[in-house]
């Protein structure tokens, strides 16, 4: 609700309620609510839920609490493509699709490098993800330097910092099939994620097809992360932080963990987006920047407290 109230034009709860119900509302307010803020709240929810579920799936598969969704190379791959597309003067209408395709291609490259036998080697996945991401980041840096001579540098940096400005129902509809596929794979992987908590070898002994589960989890996590990147650019820390918080409250059972991640991720992202629009209104803070300022201390606090407790 708070997300619907704040922005360039401050609205009262009564205005928003009236606009939502179409009861004798001011047409301008109806437009603001239905065409600008509501799609943005929904996008923030989808981005937050997608990143949190994606992070929880990868952390569970790799049994590593320091893994985040961007380990798959999705964001770095998308960033390179989007930066080069902006530099080449490609219309902004095409950048989400270009980012999505490049993100998925990068995830496939990371998966191919991490492949061992029929499955995925966790150590290779982390090494491949970190290495390719570093390479892509260097290319993005070059693109930004080159863009400084033109007017494109600001556009690239804004995308890298994460923003939902200018996104609408059409963007949400375009990513909906991929988000749905990612969520379906997340639901399918829940029993395997639970069994993988006791290790790959033991999971095999209870009948988990570990290789198939790994590919399903990686595909689902990549689809959700790529969809989020397309909708909001680089939004950090949700995929790392939210699974930690959810695990603390509901435990590690994926039946409770993944829905809890979805709710907490959606709520946090929507709240952060509202704060970004409110803090420097009528301008906007990049959501990636705000989440890094809040997320880093929160993550360090949780991680160090866990370590001290154990």
């Amino acid at each position, binding site marked *: 609700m708070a997300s619907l109230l704040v922005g360039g034009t401050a609205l009262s709860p009564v205005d928003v309620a009236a606009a939502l119900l179409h009861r004798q509302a001011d047409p301008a307010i109806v437009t603001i609510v239905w065409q600008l803020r509501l799609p943005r709240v929904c996008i923030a929810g989808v981005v937050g839920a997608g990143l949190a579920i994606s992070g929880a799936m990868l952390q569970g598969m790799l049994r590593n609490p320091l893994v985040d969704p961007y380990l798959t190379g999705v964001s770095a791959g998308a960033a390179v493509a989007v930066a080069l597309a902006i530099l080449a003067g490609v219309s902004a209408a095409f950048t989400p699709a270009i980012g999505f395709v490049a993100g998925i291609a990068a995830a496939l490259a990371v998966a191919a490098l991490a492949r061992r036998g029929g499955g995925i080697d966790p150590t290779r996945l982390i090494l491949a993800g970190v290495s390719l991401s570093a390479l892509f980041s260097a290319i993005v840096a070059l693109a930004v330097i080159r863009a400084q001579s033109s007017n494109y540098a600001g556009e690239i940096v804004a995308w890298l910092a994460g923003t939902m400005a200018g996104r609408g129902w059409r963007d949400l509809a375009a990513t909906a099939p991929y988000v749905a596929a990612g969520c379906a794979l997340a639901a399918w992987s829940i029993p395997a994620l639970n069994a993988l908590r*006791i*290790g790959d*070898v*033991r999971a095999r002994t209870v009948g988990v097809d570990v290789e198939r589960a790994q590919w399903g989890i990686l595909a689902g996590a990549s689809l959700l992360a790529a969809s989020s990147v397309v909708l909001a650019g680089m939004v950090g820390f949700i995929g790392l932080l939210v699974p930690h918080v959810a695990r603390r409250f509901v435990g590690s059972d994926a039946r409770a963990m993944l829905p809890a991640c979805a709710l907490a991720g959606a709520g946090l992202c929507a709240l952060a987006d509202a704060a970004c629009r409110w803090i420097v209104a009528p301008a906007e803070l990049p959501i990636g920047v705000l989440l890094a300022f809040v997320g880093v201390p929160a993550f360090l606090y949780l991680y160090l407290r866990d370590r001290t407790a154990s």
Partner: protein
Amino acid sequence: MIGLESVALDVGGRRLLDGIDGSIASGEFVAIVGPNGAGKTTLLRAIAGLHPPAAGRITVDGRDVSTMAPLRRALAIAMVTSDDVLFEALRVRDVAAIGRFPHHRWWQWRERPEDDDAVSSALHSLGLDAFAERFVWTLSTGERQRVWIAAGLAQATPVLLLDEPTSHLDLRVAHEILSLLRAQTRTGKTVACVMHDVNDAAAYADRIALLGDGRLAAFDVPDRVLASDVLEQTYGVAMQRLTLPDGTTRVFAAVDR
């Protein structure tokens, strides 16, 4: 019934075991013994379908384990491994409940009454009722070992394989576990167990499979295995034998003092 036909097992490109033939009947307790590195765990993993044979065939009730789907295999064979890896803060009951995985389809997320019964019964038989809600990481190594065995029992399979199940247990608990496994065979469950103590193997198992020099050196009833020279050749140490009042044999490494 477990069948092994001319089984050869490779590890790291090297032939570890070759020409393994034999069968284990339903309701039989077989102990697999041998020196370190003889291939005991590898053989157990091969029977569980986790290590494909380089040659030969391993069957459970006539079905080749290497071609069985993972879920179908897990309904036939449970394996209690000796590695102790935990990522999450799991409670004892959660771990035992994971043994019920093969009894569910992927969309069946909720435990059914028969799952609760199987888990409770497994925990009770291992003396873990009071530990059910404890986090596994708060338990001793021996207690954790019992939790893994409980998960294997909760899996409710006709074949139970165990890799050194008594390695971290004190004398009394080891006796309780081996007696429990022995009792399981009376319900028709087949138990194959890697063990280091040949006297424990002799006391509880129906037959002993002795591995050494890359082959199955002996596969017979305990007294015959313990009485044969093969034991000394396999371990490379002189043995002293002691006949107990009940006529059974025990062996000890001969020690010069």
